[in-house]
């Protein structure tokens, strides 16, 4: 653990150095990033957050002074190994298809007694403000490392969410006629220098989905999948989606089903 921590610190120094050069020379970014990924292969800054998430998971907190250890992500209370790779899924107790974030918040409310609006206030971190959700999702995600994504969407509610996700993926609107498919619907394309996978195929969706949550070098923070998708809605010039809203969950069903079979490698590290 200590050794891993030191590696992470070294990683952070590389990040700082890298951030400076990236701003200066855009064209080198792709190259640099490849080298940088190698250097960090076993020292991702997200490791720190994972450790924090593990502590938060076990700590008694909230009005009910309870830990999250009885939270059920679909494989039974407290069973986390491989759970993330099988989300989103339908949950009988809520009658809803939920992703890792909506399920986690559900447990913070039901098990720990927090108010939803309080625990979701900091659903993502800002410089100087940490996010418990980010830490917990990083920890829960890592428990699926090495396991294949498996979201067959066979339950009727899951199937419907898949179809809704597909609808949203191709739905164009806004002053630039954007949909997800514009940027993510073809193989081997890039926007400026950023490579964009084809998220409609197993290969493209798999390459993308297996790495989330992911440490983003340009942001200096771990992003959850909700954060990623809500930011892509911003890039599409749409208004801002609600955190935990159904179209964000539906998109994840669509992407995870497309990615099914791909082995998870999380937390990832990205531009």
């Amino acid at each position, binding site marked *: 653990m200590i050794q891993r921590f030191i590696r992470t610190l070294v990683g952070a120094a590389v990040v700082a150095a890298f951030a400076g050069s990236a701003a200066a020379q*855009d*064209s080198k970014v792709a190259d640099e990033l490849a080298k940088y990924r190698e250097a960090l292969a076993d020292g991702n800054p997200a490791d720190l957050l994972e450790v924090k998430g593990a502590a938060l998971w076990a700590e008694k907190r909230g009005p009910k002074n309870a830990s999250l250890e009885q939270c059920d992500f679909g494989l039974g209370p407290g069973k986390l190994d491989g759970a993330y790779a099988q989300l989103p899924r339908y949950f009988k107790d809520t009658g809803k298809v939920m992703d890792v974030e909506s399920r986690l918040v559900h447990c913070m409310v039901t098990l720990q007694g927090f108010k939803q609006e309080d625990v979701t206030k900091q659903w993502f971190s800002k410089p100087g403000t940490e996010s418990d959700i980010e830490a917990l999702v990083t920890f829960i995600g890592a428990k699926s490392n090495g396991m294949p994504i498996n979201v067959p969407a066979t339950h009727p509610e899951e199937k*419907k969410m898949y*179809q*809704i996700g*597909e*609808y*949203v993926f*191709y*739905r*164009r*609107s*806004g*002053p*630039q*006629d*954007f*949909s997800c*498919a*514009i*940027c993510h*619907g*073809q193989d*081997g*394309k*890039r*926007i*400026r*220098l*950023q490579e*964009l996978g084809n998220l409609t195929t197993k290969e493209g969706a798999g390459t993308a989905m297996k790495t989330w949550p992911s440490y983003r070098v340009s942001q200096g923070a771990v992003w959850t999948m909700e954060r990623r998708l*809500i*930011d892509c*809605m*911003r*890039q599409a*010039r*749409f*208004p*801002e*989606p*609600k955190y935990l*809203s*159904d*179209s*964000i969950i*539906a998109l994840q069903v669509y992407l995870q089903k497309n990615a099914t079979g791909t082995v998870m490698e999380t937390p990832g590290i990205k531009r």
Partner: protein
Amino acid sequence: MKKLMFAALCAALAQTALAQERTPSGKAVAKNPVSAEAEQVFRNSFRPDNPKYWMSRLEQDDAMKLCGQYKDNPPAAVRQKIELAQKATIRYPVDGKLMGKWQEGEKIAAHGRGGHIGFIQPDAPMTPRGGNCYACHQLAAKEVAYGTIGPSLHHFGKLRGNSDDIVKYAYDKIYNSNAFNACTNMPRFGLHNWLTPEEITHVVAFLMDPESPVNKD
């Protein structure tokens, strides 16, 4: 009279479109069975404090709806219907000149910000909106950070020649890309007033002018 005939033609085209749910590549596209519900879910997924004028960005015209329905690959008759309707939207600058200043066009092509909304990371309200052409196209050789969603436009004028027809085509294409290629990935810059007709003439000059860096090197 002409209008009526046009409407009838459109209706006829739409009819054949409905009958023939096949794309040119021959792949059948079934209409998403949950689209009505999906539309509701989508609309209800935005923060209630988004101002109305932001939420209006979710409205769709016929072209947007049809492209979504056919996953950007509409059958020939629908394609034709969209292209006809989009051609009819194109407007020209009052002085009729379609070639502006390439130096201005170069700036517009490189500028990628503008129009981002939301509460997390919006653009400052008065941020000018750029064409962001480099996001998708190679243009001047010296800019290496170009995207590949669209084809390379390097040497566009040099290769096509700068006849009035090509100048008009470039203007029309930027004004309304869907007039030539229904459901293309390229935005309709003029239709949405993203770029003014005058700004489009500058971008046209950037593509066409023999002195423009697009046509050098």
